[in-house]
Each structure stands twice: as structure tokens, then as C-alpha cells.
């Protein structure tokens, strides 16, 4: 009789790691759509090329590490890394930028640390920061959104041409609104807003919509219980609180309103797609609240007083460092125990 001998539980929940990853990919769609609408096909070309590179590198390194390639590619984690990096980079980034970014993300940040689940740092953010430090010019020149300057954005062919650095395609690039606000020290915020066509209702043109897109995707993931609310909400809260605290009503030295910060740059992408990366964040709910809040604070500090225009990547990486410590100090109290584990150890 060939009855199976397996240990309990025999039932399994509907969630699988691959499902989680696919849901994450799916949820980036609104944001990606907004980016494409406002900034042209550059984001899509980023994503496309990054994905191909990521899958190729992942397969290669799995082969070198003698792991089952199909099994691991199937978990879609490399794809998520590629998509997030592709979204974070300036649209229609040249191919070599993408290649370097993916190389650092997949090979260095992920596989050299032991692969999926073992990486202490968020791979996409590692790739991003390496690029930002190495190629600051390319990394800070963002194509102009629709409706500014000549009003045209990159079409699909143009985007690919630009990606592969064929000459002839010259997109207009400009500083991002975050950058503009930071550089400003003479105009009142209100005047800056009026004099600059790239500012929209909440924040920058296009940016606000991209952020709304990622917010929607994030809410969907929250609804599907892919992650808990703790880290993203506490990050957004701390960012809001801090910017409200330092918002002086719009003087030339103002750091920007809470709304501006919430809907600028990669705030929502960071909150719902980066900060929630389970591998590199804190594990317990309490730990995640602290983790998220610290990222929010760091984001504001770096945005307003730091040297870089956006700060999600740095903040996340910094807190990746701190995650194990947070885990250690936020162990939950086990049922039937008076003290927390930690205190017990200290006794």
C-alpha cells in the first residue's frame, strides 16, 4: 500500500512565494502606467531590459552555484528586483547603466550573500545606490514630463533607441521637482510653484500621478495581505509628521509640504514596494513599525538636508543594517511567559 507519509499540517494556505511575487509585479502596473503616460516609454524600456538582464544573470549564477534554475527562476524574485530597479531609474536609461545596476543587485547584493532570503540588503536599492554614486549625472537627469517644454514624450522606438545609445534621439531632461525645491533658496514656495511648469497640483507633474498609482497598488497588496500595514504606514506617517513639523507655510527655505513629500519622488514606491520587502526588513510587527518610521525620518532628513535629491534608497539600506538589531529587541512575548525573551536572556 503506497500511502504517503507526511507530517502535519496537511493543509496549506493559498499563498506561495511565487504568488506573492506575482502579486507584487501586478500591483506595480498603475504606477508604471502613470510613469509611462507622463514620461514616455522610457520606464517600460527600463523594465524590459532590466528584466531580461536579471533573468539571464540569475540563471547564470544559479548554474554556477549548481542550483535548479527553473525552480528558482519560478519564484519571480529576480523579476521583482528588475522591475523595481527599472522603475526607480530615470526613464530610458542607457543599457550599460541597467547592466551595472542589475549586476550589483542580482549578483552582489543577492547571490553573493547566499541567494533569495539570505540577502541583508534590498538588491534593487543596492543597484540603485551603486549607480547613483558612480554615475550621478545620468542618474539625476530625468526626462521632462508631458506638457512641459515641447510637450512630447518618448515613444517606444525612441525609448529603445535611447536605451541603446543610438544617436539622434535627444530627450529633454531636467531636474526633478524634489531637486528644484531643494536648490531653491530665493523664491517662496508659492512663487516657485507658479514659475515652474513641472509642478502640478500636489507635487510634480506626473510624479503625483505615479505616486498615486503606486499607492493604489500598495493598497491592493495590503488588501491581499501580502504584507502588513506596519512598515509602510509608519513610514508614511513619520514622513508626514516630520514634514508638517518643519513646514513653515512656504518660505524660500521651506522643506516642502507634507503632501509634496508624500507624492514626490519614490515615496509611495518606497513605502509599498521597497520598505515592505520582507527579506530585508524587520520581522516582528513592532520591529516593522520602528523600521518604517525610521525610514520615513531618514527620507525627510536626506531630502531636505542631504546631498542627494531623493532618499528612499539610502534610507532603506541604512535601515537594512539595523533590521537584525530591531528583530533582537522586538521579540514578542510568548504565550504563558511573563517576560520577553530578551529580558529572560539578560537575567
Amino acid at each position: 500500500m503506497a500511502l504517503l507519509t507526511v507530517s502535519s499540517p496537511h493543509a496549506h494556505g493559498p499563498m506561495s512565494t511565487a504568488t506573492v511575487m506575482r502579486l507584487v509585479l501586478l500591483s506595480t502596473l498603475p504606477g508604471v502606467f502613470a510613469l509611462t503616460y507622463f514620461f514616455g516609454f522610457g520606464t517600460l524600456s527600463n523594465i524590459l531590459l532590466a528584466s531580461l538582464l536579471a533573468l539571464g544573470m540569475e540563471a547564470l549564477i544559479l548554474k554556477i552555484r549548481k542550483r535548479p534554475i527553473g525552480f528558482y527562476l519560478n519564484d519571480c524574485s529576480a523579476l521583482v528586483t528588475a522591475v523595481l530597479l527599472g522603475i526607480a531609474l530615470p526613464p530610458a536609461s542607457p543599457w550599460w547603466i541597467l547592466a551595472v545596476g542589475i549586476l550589483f543587485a542580482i549578483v552582489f547584493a543577492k547571490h553573493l550573500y547566499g541567494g533569495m532570503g539570505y540577502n541583508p540588503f534590498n538588491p534593487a536599492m543596492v543597484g540603485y545606490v551603486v549607480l547613483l554614486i558612480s554615475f550621478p549625472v545620468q542618474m539625476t537627469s530625468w526626462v521632462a514630463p508631458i506638457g512641459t517644454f515641447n510637450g512630447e514624450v518618448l515613444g517606444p522606438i525612441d525609448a529603445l533607441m535611447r536605451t541603446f545609445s543610438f544617436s539622434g534621439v535627444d530627450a529633454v531632461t531636467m531636474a526633478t521637482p524634489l531637486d528644484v525645491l531643494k536648490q531653491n533658496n530665493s523664491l517662496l514656495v508659492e512663487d516657485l510653484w507658479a514659475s515652474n511648469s513641472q509642478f502640478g497640483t500636489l507635487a510634480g507633474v506626473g510624479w503625483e500621478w505615479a505616486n498615486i498609482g503606486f499607492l493604489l497598488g500598495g493598497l491592493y497588496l495590503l488588501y491581499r495581505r501580502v504584507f502588513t500595514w506596519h512598515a509602510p504606514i509608519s513610514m508614511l506617517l513619520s514622513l508626514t509628521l516630520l514634514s508638517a513639523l518643519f513646514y513653515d507655510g512656504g518660505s524660500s527655505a521651506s522643506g516642502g509640504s507634507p503632501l509634496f513629500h508624500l507624492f514626490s519622488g519614490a515615496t509611495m514606491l518606497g513605502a509599498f514596494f521597497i520598505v515592505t520587502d520582507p527579506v530585508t526588513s524587520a520581522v516582528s510587527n513592532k520591529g516593522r513599525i520602528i523600521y518604517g518610521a525610521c525610514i520615513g525620518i531618514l527620507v525627510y532628513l536626506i531630502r531636505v538636508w542631504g546631498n542627494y535629491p531623493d532618499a528612499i534608497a539610502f534610507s532603506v539600506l541604512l535601515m537594512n543594517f539595523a533590521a537584525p538589531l530591531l528583530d533582537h529587541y522586538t521579540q514578542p512575548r510568548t504565550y504563558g511567559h511573563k517576560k520577553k525573551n530578551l529580558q529572560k536572556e539578560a537575567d
Partner: protein
Amino acid sequence: MRKIWDIHGGVHPPENKTQSLQRGIENAGIPPVLVHPLSQHIGAPAAPIVEVGQRVLKGQMIAEAKGFVSVPVHAASSGTVSAIEHREIPHPSGLLAPCIVIDTDGKDEWIELDPVDDYTTLEKADLLHRIRDCGIAGMGGAGFPSAVKLSTRDDAVIDTLIINGTECEPYITADDMLMRERADQIIAGIKILQYLIQPTEQTLIGVEDNKPEGIAALRQAAEDSNIEIVVFPTKYPSGGEKQLIQILTGREVPSGGLPADVGIVCQNIGTTVAIHRAVQFGEPLISRITTVTGDACSAPGNFEVLLGTPVDYLLKLGGFNQAQCLRLVMGGPMMGFTLKDTSVPVVKTTNCLLAPTTEELPPPPPAQACIRCGLCAEACPVSLLPQQMYWFARGKEYEKLEDHNLFDCIECGACSYACPSNIPLVQYYRASKAEIRKQQQEKVKSEHAKARFEARQLRIEREEAEKEARRKARQEAAKKKAAAGKDPIKAAQEKAAAPAVDPAQAAIEKAMAKRSGAAPEESSEETLARLQKAVETAEKRLESASAKLKEAEAADAPNLGALQTAHERMTEKLAKAKEELQQHQQASSGASDTDDPAAAAIARAQAARASKEDKSPLEKAQEQVASLEKRLTKSEQKLAEAKESGSDTAEVLEQSTAKLREKLDSARAELAQISESEAPVAAAASTNDPAQLAIEKAMAAREAAAKLSPEDKARKALESLEARVEKTRAKLAEAEESGADTVEVLRDTLAKLEDKLAEARKDPGVEG
């Protein structure tokens, strides 16, 4: 509305309960063969009390409980015992274990039962005894002996009695059906429990809100009682004992503790019916309700099935289709275990047989890497960190695992259920627990060995020291006696009295030491007190051992095995102590025909000594000798008896007889010496009362001595000593030849005498 607390975590697997709720409880009938495992409960397996070939009746006890944490096993139907052998039993590891196999005869003939109309006329202890004798063990899951669970310590105040009707596992509906159809019996059983436990505050039945019909039936049945039915939202694993307690009372059972520690006793709802039937009708636990379900069963439902019924028999009733089923689970999909073989029997804890199709419960996909998503920690009802424990388990970091409270894990499987990477987390925890337990057991074992060795060392040293002390004491006594040579009466008296405290006492001591390892001289009352105390301590120890064992079992602690052996040892000790006490009581109540000669000897010796107290020295001496003779005769007689019957007391008896003889001899020798040295009283020697003789002689000697010069006295003493040395030597030679065990005593005596003689010779004149 009553306040309901929430537990941390939990999951919501598909309930799948409706399939088996389509029909009422059906009787599964009598299978041709019943297989009764001796261990269907937590604790020591029962011991068979029937033989192969013997006809047994339905409800007849076929194996008795062994030890405190154990329950007996009863035949579920009438028939013939066809085998007592190792068979596969339902167990996660597919164990072979001893079973009693009965070929049923279909007559289903009951043994005579002993119903009780009004249980309130019974003592609490009798009730517990009944529950135990009826073989009742927790029917919810673990199978913990109910009587043990119900016998709370006297000092524990129980304010809440909780009946667990949660049934939170998917698929299982046995309790639900029981509530729907037998709510009256449930309530009747709970009332018995109330009488037993006397909860000071409340009695609650906890039920998940997915059983509206069962709840309605219970409510109706409980209408006129003070039993409250508490309904709470469905969530797995609300039915874990600790979880249910938290939901209903907000209290947490301390880690490693018992519900009683927070004033609660918890029982499964199925168990209450069994208790009701056991008390009211005297019916032992021989059947239960088992759910047969899963898509591979065409007729899922609940069956009243005889314990011991082979699983395949029952599955057939459920329309089981083997071809569709890849795994067969006993229990639910969350905590049940797979069966390798369908020939295993239904046991007391079998609440469900789940035969799912492959689509229903597909084989587990290969595990992926942990992505530290924390869903497992989110799901854990105990607030553990399953992913951390998983890392530690993989790294075999057992200390860290224990620091992370691995042993508080109830193996509910919620974490594995939730894990998106399909990591079999619980499997890791089980393996680690087993490994840690093994290591601890080994540690305990080696510690035991060490302790034993040290104890032995100590004993040897102590014995040496005692020997030395005795030798010294004897030398002292010899000196004194030599010094007291001027007063032969006193000497004679001393002599006569001395043996009573010497060899006889030694015999007593030895006998006692042999039995209880107890200490020296004590009066009868002291012995009694000591033995009583021993029984008391043993009882106390046993109780605490049982409590500990219970806790350990409840908490699934690592030292379970060690505790079990400790518990068994305690039980043995208690039995021994009790036996001893009884023997002593018999002995001191003058039952000379007691079958413990040593105890009798002690009693008599002590009685004799006591009666000696208020008599003149002369009378004492007289009685001493007389009693010595009497004792010797008796002792010899007993020895003969013992030898004949081959009893193991023969050895002790032989020793004490020899010693008695020696003592008597030396007393007589003394007398003889006196008579030798004093001719005028020789006429009195015709008397055959040696004590009288001794006394008379001694008196005469004193008179004579008074007339003698010191030199004469000294000479006489010397002479007498010489004579004694001579005699002892002869006796020693004799003893050596016959290999008697008095040799040593004689040697001692001789040495002593020689010492004395040497001293006397050294200084003949001055002694006087």
C-alpha cells in the same frame, strides 16, 4: 454579553465540515476483529490481565492501569482473545506496540455493570477511581488520563471549569454531532465534573460559531443549569487548551504550568459523555464517535465506532475509494498524522479519519527559501518567531531554540500553513524537540550514574568509619569491664544486658537496614512514625512528580522521559513504603504469625526492652536470659520454616539466630565462670534457669569477692578471662569450620577478650 478575548495569530483554513454533517451518527457495528493497543493514552501502557484463548465480555477490563498516569483497556465487544502481540498502532511514526486482539463472536454480551443512581453519594476519590477504572482518557487529542487531570491538588482553588467544544480543526465534526444528538449526556457529564471539581465561579462550554445547531442543542439542554455556552469566532487553533482558556478568560497558563495554576480545569466535550456513561451506567470507554470524511469517501459521516475497530473496516462504511487517496490522515488536516497502513485500529483519541483526494490536499511542493515574510509569526497562536526557530533548527542551534521558547510550540501547524515558501516548519520543530529531549535524557542518565557512584563511595566510607567506631567503643567497654572486675554482679548484669544492645540490636538493625536502609536504634513508636513519614513523603513526592509529569506532558517539555521514569520510581517507592508501614503495624500489634520475621523480631525486642525499664536489675537480667532463650527457640523455628519455604528472609533469620545463640552462649559462659570460681553455690547450679543461676552465682561471687584480697580478685578475674578466651577460641574454630556467619562477631569478641586479658596480665595486683 460575556467578554471574549482574542488570541494572537491563527489562520482560517477552509472548514470542510459540511460533508460529514449530512447524516446523523451511525453505528459502525461489530467488526470481526478488535485490536486493543495497550497504550492509547499518555502515560504508562496498561498491562494485560487476560490470556490468549480466554473468552471476554463486552466491557471487561483486559488490561489494567500501570502506575498513576495510566488507564486500563476494556474489551469493546464479547469474543475470544486470539493474540497478545505487537501490532502496528496509530502513531505518527508507525510504531509497533503490544495489542490485545479479540475475535468477536457477534453476541456483544455485556459484562455485569455497576451503575450508580446518585453519584453525589460517592466520595470524590471513588468517583475518580471509577473514571480511571473505566479507562477514560482525553478524547480530544492527546489522550491524557482524565482522572489525573481531574485530581487537582487540594490547595488549588479551581474557579472555572471549561469544556472544550471548539473543534477548530477543519473537516472534523464528531463533537459537533455529539452536541446535536447527545447534548443531554454532555450536560449530565459536566454536572458530574462540577460535583468533582466544585468550580467556585463558573462552568463554560466553549464552542466556535460555526456550529449553530450544536450550540442550540446545548443551550436547550443546559437551560436549567449554571452552565454557560460561550460562542466565539471560528479561527484555528482556538481549540488548543491554552488558547481556549485565553479566549474564554483572558488568562494565560504559565509556560510549563497547568491550567490549574490559573484556577482552571479543562475537559474535552467528548470526554464528558464518556464520564457520564462511566459514572451513571458503569460503562467503560469502549466506543467513540469518529468522523470519516474527505473526498475519497463517497459516504462521509460520523460513526459510533467500537474502540479497536480496524480503520479499513470503518473506511468501508464511509465509502472509501483507495484509488483516489494518496494519504490517509488520522485526525484533522492541521495536526493529524498519516497512516501507513489501514489495518491499525481506532483508539480512544481517534476523532477523525480523513481520506482526501490528491486534488483536495495535494502533496507538499518543494520548500523554497524563507523570505522572512513573517507570515508565520503572524499566524503563531503562541507568539513565537517561527522563522527564527527555523533558522536555528536548521543550524542545530538548540540552545537558541530553547531561548526562543521552542517548547512552548503546540505544533498546531498554523505557521506551516501560512508559509508562502512551503517550508515544513513544524517538522523542523518536532525533530529539534526530539533531539533536545534525547540529549537531556542522556545528560540525566549520566548524572544518575555519577550520583550512584558517589553515593556508593560515600556508603563505603561511612561503613568503614562505623566499623572503626565500633571497634573503639568495644575497646573502651573492655577497659571499663576490666576495671569493674571488683564487682562481679554488676559485671554479670552488664554482661547479661550488654548483648541485648549488642548482637540483638545489631540483628535488628541489620534486618531493618536491609529493608529500609534506615538508621539505628528506635522505639516501636519511632519506627511507626518514621515509616508513616516515609509513606507521607513518598506520597508527596509522587504527587509532585505526577504534577510535574502532567505539566511536562501538557507543555511537551524536553525532560518528559526522565520525568516518567522518576514518576515510576516514586510509585514503586510509595508502594514499598506502604508495605513496610503495614508490616510494621502488624508486627507491633503483636501478630507473631506475620510473614515478616524481621519486623516481628524488632517488635519483640523492643517490647522486651520496654518492659525491662521499670524492673530491678536482677529481674532484668533474669528476664533477659529467659527471653534470650525464648527468642532463640523461636528464631530457630522460624529459620527452619523459612528455609523450608525457601523464603528470602532465611538469610536474615540465620544471622539473627546465630547472633542470639552467641549472645546466649556468652551470657551462659559468664555464668559458668562465676560458678567455676565459686564452689559453694555449685548446688544451685542444678537449677535449669540460667538467669537465676547467673544472679545467684553473681551474688555469691560478690560475697566471696568481698572476702578476697585484691590479688585474689585480680587473679580470679584473670582466670575467668582466660577461660572465656579459651571458650571463644573454641567457638570461633567451630564457627570457622562450619562457615557460619557468626565468625566475624566471634573474632571481634575474641579480640576484645584478648585485649582485656593482656591488660589484666600486665597489671595483676593493682587492678583491685
